[in-house]
Structure formats: C-alpha cells, structure tokens
C-alpha cells in the first residue's frame, strides 16, 4: 500500500471495492491498529481514529473505537456459548459484571440473537455466526464497525440477515460502517459511498452512482458493477443511453420504458426446448437417503436425479440444504444410507475412492486444503503418480492439464505463494491430470474476485465443450445464469426444482422458497411491464442488451449464449 489518503466521517456507510491484492484487508486491519501493532510492516504516515493515532494507542482503547468482523466465521468465535462469546470483549475491558450483562443483552437484541444465549456458537448457521461476531464487537461499543468480506461465505439469506443488522446499526445508532465487498447490487441499494482501491492506491471515491457510471474505471479494473449498470453502459456505448444512469432495478425499469417509447416490439423467437448432453448417463442418483451418525441427522431425503454425459449443471440451495452431502455421496466419500448412486458406471457403495478418482475430478472450495508440493508441476503430477501411470503419460497429462487452465508458463512456481486465482487453477489442473469424464466443483469461486470467478468458470466451460460433464455448487446466481445449462435446487435435503436454467429463474416465487434470489438482470426482465416485447427471464446482460438494441437496429439479433467477457 502506498500513499493512500482517505477521510471518513462519523455515520457514513462505506463500501471498499477492488480486485484481490488491492490491499482491502490491509486497510481494514490498519483501522484498529492490528497493523502495525500486532502484525509487522512498515507504516509511514498515520491512521487517525477520532484524532487518536493507531500506532500510539493501546489495543484496548482502539477496540472500543473500532470493531472488526472477518470473512471466516469460525476463526473469530472462541467460546462455548453465545452469551460468553459476547461477554468476552467487555470482560477483557474489566467492566463490572452488571454492565457486561446489560451490554450482552443489548448487543444480542440488536443482532436479533436474543433467546440464543446458551447455544453453542458452532451450532449456528453462517448468517447467525456472523451476526454473533457483530454482537461480540458492538458489545464493546465501538463507533466504527469494519466488515472485511464478512458476507462472502454466506448464502443469500445469511447475507440479508447480516445486512439488515448492519444497516440498523448505521441508521439507528449512527455507527460508521466500512464493508470490503464486491456485492455491487447490495452496495447500490444500501450505501452512501464507494471507495475503489487498486494495488494499494486510491483509484476512485464517490457515491455508488458516480462510481458505477464511471466507464473508464470499469474498463481499467475487473470489479463488478450492478448488472443494470452493466446494461446501461452497453446501451450507452451503442449510442442509446438511458435518461438517467441506473444502479437499481426500478431505476433501470423506468429508464428502459422511456428509452423504448415509440419503438415497436419485434417478435421474440420462442425459447427452443433445449436438449443437453448425450444419451449416455454420467450420474444416476436413485432415492438417495443419507443420515449422519451418531447424531442421527437426516441430511438428504429421497433425492433422485440423472445427469447425462456432457451436461453443465449447477447444484444450488441454502447452506444446510444437503448439497455437500449429495456431493460426498457422488464422490464415494459417503456411502448412501439407502438408495443408489451410480457415477460413471460405478456403484459408489462398493467402489474405492481412489478408483472413483479416475472418473470424477473434484475441485475443493479451499485450494489451500490440498496444495502441498514445491512446484506446480509436481502438484499436478501427484494424482497420475498415485495411479502409477507411465512416466511419459504422466508428463503428457500434466502438460495438457496445465495448458487447459493456462498455467503452462508457471510450472516451477511454489503453489502456496501464488495469487488466490492461480492457486484455484492449480487445484483444477490437479483434478484434470487424472483425465476424469466428470468434474465436480464445490463453490470454486468463494473468495475469488470478479476476474478470478470468470476465469474459473471459463475453464469449467472449456471442459464442458470438450464433452466432459461439469457439476458445480455455488451461491453466486449471476454465475449460474451465465454458465449452467441446467439447475438442480435442493431445499431441506430434497430436490425442490430440476429444470433448464431459464425455467428455474422463471419461477422466482418457488426459487425464493429455497432462499435463492435470481440475478438482477432477470429481476429487471420480470419487473418490466408485460407487452414491452423484451425477454421476461433474461439470464445475461448480453441477452437483454441485444434484445433492446434490436429495437433500433436488427443487426443485434444474434445473441451470444454465454459471456463474452474478456478476462
């Protein structure tokens, strides 16, 4: 981080955006003095909180000024009851027990966890854990609350829970809120100000509208603007700007109606029923039940579906809906309590995991849970070596896998020291080196920035184009809409919906039961009045913009089926 100047006033609700490596976490940890007081580093210049220099102020004093909530809920909860967790900070401040009681009660009420006092923090949902972390911080009565990617591991419901609490803290108590996040639709809806960082420097600073309308900024940096803003930019570039630049659905809907006034709706081609995949079955799940012992948790109930070779399927659902359990059953890591799972012709109940690995490649959510080798090359060769393949074949497989993920020039690098996006690619290459016909990715984009997300999904897409079956799990609905052909929605351990992607988002009410919110561009299509002659359930910004531009000029008819984003 170099020469950063930033002033934030009491009561502001500020988003910090930037690519990975833009120093978002650094600035978060500087605010409460963890940098440079606990973690080393050279700090020139100063960070002043209410005029107090963080370098010279004690941790306890700063802790009463600035609270911080981190990305991973597990690392910030260390006691065995909700109440003890919230009391931890005030106890450290040596407050009298009566006052601690009072503060605990207030903090828990504010985050709506009153009634949970005696619960084990580890038994809470993701959204509840993050709210508990907020309570534990606000019990110290800070003026400023920093959330460092605190919603990025949560499902949409968890995100909403945390946001409503944070907004109340801002509005009711005038607390200053700083959130490092790339959830631009949420920023557009809630925040006063956006600060964009680039490689440790201030790139832009303004209101959400000023920032999202700044085309030059978005050409320079790979950060996400709301989909309606992306649409407005595309239209503007073609000479059809909306009257006012939109950042939310109602703004875009009004603007489009004005723009299209007087043009005649062109007939839209009816969506052709798509047939995906070949005839050959890749995955067959019949009446799968799974019960975790010893606690007798019935995680998956009578789940059945078939996936054909060559399909590109998204598996979505709230945390705790049974996604992970289904995945583990597909991989042979768990054996069905009852029912049948056949993957690539193998009955997972009787097939060894190492044998399954020949057919199914698995990409773990957190790359750091499997990287161990000293070079990329060695890491990728690990699987084929375990299969005791011939040396030439191993070399060939490693070369192919690295080429597929675009790491052929980084063979000698040390994986743990690579940037997060590259670490994910090493993990994908490691799975590909076994040349599986099926690839399963478990939340592969968690913790990745916009560029990383699309790079990973484009690799998945190229694997799909080679004829491999791709199944991925994600909370990121824009990615589902853009890449998946078919979606299976799980809810409460059961299959709620199983349909082509267009079909899924065409039923927003049913999808909301599984606590899933369609992408913003689909919401725009659904919000427009009927008879506008625009797609009802557009999946991508490109589809929508092509349909609109078509009204002015027929050449835009050809709609790209997938993202043409350059990454």
């Amino acid at each position: 981080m170099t020469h950063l100047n930033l002033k934030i006033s009491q009561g502001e609700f500020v988003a910090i955006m930037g690519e990975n490596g833009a120093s978002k976490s650094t600035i978060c940890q500087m605010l409460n003095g963890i940098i440079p007081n606990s973690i080393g580093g050279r700090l020139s210049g100063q960070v002043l909180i209410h005029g107090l220099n963080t370098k010279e102020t004690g941790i306890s004093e700063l802790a009463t000024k600035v609270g911080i909530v981190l990305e991973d809920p597990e690392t910030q909860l260390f006691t065995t009851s909700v109440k003890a967790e919230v009391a931890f900070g005030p106890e450290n401040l040596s407050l009298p027990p009566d006052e601690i009681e009072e503060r605990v009660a207030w903090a828990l009420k504010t985050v709506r966890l009153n009634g949970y006092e005696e619960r084990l923090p580890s038994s809470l949902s993701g959204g509840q854990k993050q709210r508990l972390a907020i309570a534990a911080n606000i019990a110290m009565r800070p003026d400023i609350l920093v959330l460092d990617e605190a919603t990025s591991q949560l499902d949409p419901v968890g995100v909403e829970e945390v946001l409503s609490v944070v907004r109340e803290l801002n509005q009711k108590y005038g607390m200053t809120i700083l959130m490092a996040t790339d959830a631009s639709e949420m920023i557009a809806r809630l925040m006063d100000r956006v600060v964009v960082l680039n490689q440790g420097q201030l790139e832009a600073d303004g209101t959400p509208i000023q920032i999202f309308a700044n085309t030059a900024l978005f050409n320079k940096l790979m950060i996400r603007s709301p989909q309606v803003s992306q649409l407005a930019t595309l239209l503007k570039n073609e000479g059809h700007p909306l009257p006012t630049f939109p950042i939310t659905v109602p703004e875009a809907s009004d603007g489009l109606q004005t723009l299209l006034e007087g043009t005649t709706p062109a007939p839209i081609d009816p969506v052709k029923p798509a047939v995906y995949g070949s005839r050959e079955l890749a995955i067959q799940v019949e009446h799968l039940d799974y019960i975790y012992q010893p606690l007798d948790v019935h995680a998956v109930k009578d789940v059945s579906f078939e996936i054909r070779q060559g399909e590109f399927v998204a598996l979505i659902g709230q945390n705790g809906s049974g996604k992970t359990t289904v995945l583990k059953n597909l991989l042979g890591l768990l054996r069905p309590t009852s029912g049948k799972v056949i993957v690539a012709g193998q009955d997972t109940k009787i097939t060894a995991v190492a044998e399954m690995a020949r057919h199914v490649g698995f990409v773990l959510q957190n790359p750091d849970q499997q990287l161990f080798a000293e070079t990329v090359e060695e890491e990728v060769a690990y699987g084929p070596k375990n299969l005791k393949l011939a040396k030439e074949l191993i070399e060939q497989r490693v070369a192919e896998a690295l080429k597929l993920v675009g790491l052929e020039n980084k063979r000698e690098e040390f994986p743990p020291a690579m940037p997060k996006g590259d670490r994910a690619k090493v993990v994908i290459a490691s799975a590909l080196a076994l040349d599986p016909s099926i690839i399963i990715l478990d939340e592969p984009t968690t913790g990745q920035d916009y560029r990383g997300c699309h790079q990973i999904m484009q690799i998945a897409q190229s694997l799909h184009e080679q004829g491999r079956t791709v199944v991925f799990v994600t909370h990121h609905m824009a990615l589902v809409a853009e890449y998946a052909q078919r979606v299976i929605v799980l809810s409460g351990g059961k299959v709620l919906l199983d349909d082509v992607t267009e079909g899924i988002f065409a039923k927003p009410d049913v999808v909301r039961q599984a606590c899933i919110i369609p992408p913003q561009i689909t919401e725009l299509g659904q919000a427009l009045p009927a008879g506008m002659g625009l797609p009802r359930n557009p999946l991508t910004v490109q589809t929508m913009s092509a349909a609109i531009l078509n009204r002015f000029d027929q050449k835009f008819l050809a709609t790209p089926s997938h993202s043409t984003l350059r990454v």
Partner: protein
Amino acid sequence: MSSLIAYYPGNTLFHKLDPRAKIIFMVILSMAIFAVQQIPVALVVLAVMLCLWFVARLPFSVLWSFIKVLLPIIGFLFLVQAVFYPGNTPLIKPLIPIGRGYGQVTLEGILFAVLLALRLMAMIIMLPLVNFTTPVQIFALGMVKMGLPYRLAYTMTTALNLVPILQGETSVIVDAQRLRAMQSFEKGTLVEKLKAYPALVTPLVIGSMRRAQLMAVAMDSRAFGASKSRTYLEDIRLHVGDWVFICLTVAFTIGIIVASYVM
C-alpha cells in the same frame, strides 16, 4: 460431523462440578494411572472412568471412535511387549532366538501389554471427560482462580480446543488427497504411508498458521490481554459437592497407589 469446540452441553452432576475440582481430578489421577502396576487395579480404574462417562451422559459412539484410533497403537504395544519383554513363561517358541527370553512370546509379556493397554484407555477416557463437560471460558476461569495468569490459562484452553479443529481439518485434507487417487492410508505399506505424509502435513500446517493469524486479529480486536485484572461475567464457587468430589478423588488416588505398591 466434527464440532469445532469439543463441548457437549449437559446438566449432569459431572457438568455441574466446579472446574477446579475437575482440574484436580485430571492432574492427580493421570499421575496415579501411571503408577498402576496390577491388571485388576487398572480394570477398576477403567470401570470407574466408564461409569463417569455414563454419569456425564457423553455419547459412547465418541468413545468408540477414540478406541478405534487407539487400536493400532495397542496392537503395536502388544507386538513390542510380546517380543521384547523378558519373561519366564514362554507361550510360543521363538522364531529367531535372541537369548534370555527375548524374542519369544511370554505370558509376562502379554500381561504387561494388557496392563499398558488398560492404562492407555483409562487416560484416553479421562481427558475428554473433563474437556467435553467444561465450557472453555469456565475451564480458563478455573485455572485463573488456581493462580495461573489469564493469558496463559486462555492459551492452554485454546490449544486444547485446537485438537478437534485439527481433526476436522485433517479429515477434509485426507478426503481431498484420496480424491487424487492417494491410497496409502487405506492399504499402503508403512514406507508408503510415511511417503504420503507431506501431502497431509503441509496443507495442515499452512492452514493452521493462517487460522492462528486470523484468530489473533479477532482476539486483538476484542481487547484480549488488555489488562491483567480482567472481570468475569460468570463466577465459580466451590460447593459442598465439589469438596466431596475432591475428597473422593484424593481417596481413590491414594487407594490406587497403595494397591499398586503394597499389594
């Protein structure tokens, strides 16, 4: 499913004991267990531990999972003791006579291995008995009231709690590597198993370091260690029941030692 913090909430007599009573129980009994020299005494100790496990209503399936982890170690102990323990009652003729009773399976060797296995099992039941029934913050408070500095007490309890976290983390890593066709942990030879270790240990160590650093950030932001005289929301007091338990523990320990050296 592994829980992050190994605490099983409950309302049993054992849960209600003062943490100091449980710490005394843990410390003096673990010393006593090492003093046990006779199989019947070891059996009695083991039976008492099992009864307490039952009293605390802890799940027996968890106990069984511990025993399963121990089985290979017990097997190894049997092998070593059977071969190397000097004894006079040979059961099986030695394959390679080494001399002076070494290298042959003797009754004394087997009995000694049984004793070791019982002691090991008693220990492995006793430690979680305390850890699983005491919330971390209460455990730390107990240590502070016994005179330990707060930071040290808290660091020790946190370390105890890292064990289940690392267990969970290890199983994720093992699964990830199994899905890369690693089979050494299921059917490999000892050499293959040793060779496979870096693939587990490296991600485990790197992950733990990252986790520790983030935990420190979270603790600092909640003023951990801000002052030496910290207050406590919950207070603990030694009740009559706790004193009875401590007396019983001391009496039981003396009984074990007397039985071991006098009998």
